[in-house]
């Protein structure tokens, strides 16, 4: 029976590609599918593009490919990456330039059409409301502040590029799991209405799209039992023609692939597991079975699919104020009480310098900064040290920067025994996320696929 072997690539912009190297060298994979775009990554890329119209892609992809291609080319390994971000054409130019140093000709495919920021008027004219899909709010309130708006595309255009012979496919926003479904469609001859097989493909993609999170990274169970995280292997899937799959990792790598590590990843960022909606299929995860068949080998079978949705998801981002923040550490004894007094001092001075805030968050790092109101107060006594962190949301950078300037004087004129005065932290723009839906037909008519040889 025909099968295809796919390696999980990066899980986000900035992730390590060393484990991908191992998957190529020792994992006998044919494809690497790599997810460079978290929800907020497009905001970073939009800022890049505002500075320079030739940017707007994730800049780690070219060094990553230059490092991996010398081992990938002789093995015929192909790449599918959403590293194009907001500017896949610029990413292609960078890649074609970089590829000049390789003798072999490579075909680079590009998928365009996910960015709809310039088309929002047109969408509204044909009756797309663009209301917030969770709250039902009208987009008018944020329309002027939008920085990007991108639709999640499915696997079809990616398959088109692979069918045209692309060795490397660059996309912008596509459903993360579609990066993985594409090589399965290309290799295994599935039809676009083989819903159960598509569902299996999406489940496999979902399991692989977050790099080390499938192989024992960020494991909420017995984390001490996960060996050698320093040399973690990223997940590898073998998927057969009938949809059955086995998840593993390269031999000799750290981490762990078992029922527990994989089921944590299965439900990661999932809402209703009976309806995991993707552009290509509506997946039911509650019918599948995961069976350990060997050390670091889990068979995944039995996901069910229903027809693809009529609507595609768009995620837009809008400017939503600026965050100012500052931190200072206090030592035992009474570390928390000292940090609390410092917080009171700062709050009084904020009023006196007329610092205008829309919101303020006060956290005590070492006590409650991560669990907030759920932190256990019985631990408050006798802490070795506590860091005060104050964060504010302001209308602009100038206002937000006022907060940081209130902290340095605490060193000589506040409560005693400080450490970790790290200097001022630059204010940072905040971004609201606006998820909405649009009929797939109005999105898909703008999809363009091109394949060019280096």
């Amino acid at each position, binding site marked *: 029976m025909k099968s295809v072997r796919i390696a999980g690539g990066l899980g986000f912009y900035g992730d390590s590609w060393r484990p991908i190297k191992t998957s190529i060298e020792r994992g006998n994979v044919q494809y690497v599918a790599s997810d460079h775009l978290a*929800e*907020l990554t497009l*905001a970073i890329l939009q800022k890049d593009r505002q500075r320079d119209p030739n940017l707007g892609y994730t800049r780690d992809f070219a060094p990553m490919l230059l490092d991996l291609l010398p081992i990938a080319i002789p093995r015929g390994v192909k790449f599918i990456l959403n590293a194009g971000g907001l500017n896949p054409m610029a990413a292609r130019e960078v890649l074609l330039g970089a590829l000049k140093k390789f003798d072999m000709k490579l075909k680079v495919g590009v998928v365009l059409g996910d960015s709809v920021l310039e088309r929002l008027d047109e969408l509204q004219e044909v009756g797309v409301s663009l209301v917030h899909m*969770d709250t039902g709010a009208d987009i008018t309130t944020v329309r002027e502040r939008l920085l990007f708006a991108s639709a999640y595309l499915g696997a079809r255009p990616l398959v088109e590029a692979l069918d045209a012979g692309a060795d490397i496919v660059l996309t912008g926003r596509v459903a993360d799991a579609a990066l993985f479904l594409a090589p399965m469609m290309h290799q295994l001859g599935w039809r676009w209405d083989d819903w159960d097989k598509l569902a299996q493909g999406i489940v496999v993609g979902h399991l692989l799209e977050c790099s080390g999170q499938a192989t024992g990274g*960020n*494991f*909420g*169970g*017995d984390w001490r039992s996960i060996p050698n995280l320093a040399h973690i292997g990223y997940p590898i899937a073998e998927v057969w023609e009938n949809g059955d799959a086995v998840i593993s990792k390269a031999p000799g790598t750290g981490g762990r692939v078992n*029922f*527990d590590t994989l*089921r*944590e*990843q*299965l*439900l*990661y*960022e*999932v*809402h*209703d*597991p*009976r309806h995991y909606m993707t552009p290509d299929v509506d997946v039911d*995860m*509650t*019918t*599948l*079975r*995961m069976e350990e068949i060997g050390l670091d080998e889990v068979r995944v079978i039995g996901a069910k699919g229903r027809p693809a949705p009529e609507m595609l998801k768009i*995620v837009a*981002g809008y400017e*939503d*104020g600026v*965050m100012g*923040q500052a931190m200072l550490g206090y030592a035992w004894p009474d570390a928390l009480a000292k940090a609390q007094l410092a917080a009171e001092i700062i709050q009084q001075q904020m009023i006196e310098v007329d610092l205008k805030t829309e*919101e*303020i*968050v006060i*956290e005590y*790092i070492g006590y409650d*900064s*991560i*669990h*907030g*109101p*759920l932190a*256990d107060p019985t631990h408050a006594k006798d802490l070795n040290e506590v860091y005060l*962190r104050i*964060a*504010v*949301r302001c209308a602009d950078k100038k206002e937000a920067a006022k907060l940081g300037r209130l902290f340095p004087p605490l060193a000589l004129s506040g409560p005693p025994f400080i450490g970790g005065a790290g200097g001022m932290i630059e204010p940072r723009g*905040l*971004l*609201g*996320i606006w*998820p909405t839906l649009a009929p797939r037909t109005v999105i898909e008519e703008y999809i363009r696929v091109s394949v060019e040889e280096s």
Partner: protein
Amino acid sequence: MKKQLVELAHARSGDKGDIANIALFAPDQATYDLLVREVTTERVRTHFAGIVTGKVERYEAPNVLALNFVLHGALNGGASRSLRSDALGKSLSSALLRMEIEV
């Protein structure tokens, strides 16, 4: 007898916009049945008062012995807008494990 969830189960949380999900995993069928009975939508909502501003939904995935909680308004507006240290809600999972249930 009361037990804290951390002794019974493990969990992972994730973010989408201002919505977080927490999947809670039982080691066996008996513990799963217990979690289904005790860790109700209402209890989770009360547990996260002060953090979660919207509704809480619960989904069952008995095939992997898991309950999946979807927490609306859980992330101070979402990771890219949040002022919190745990902007992505990565540790909401461990915060759920503080809950005590009757066993």
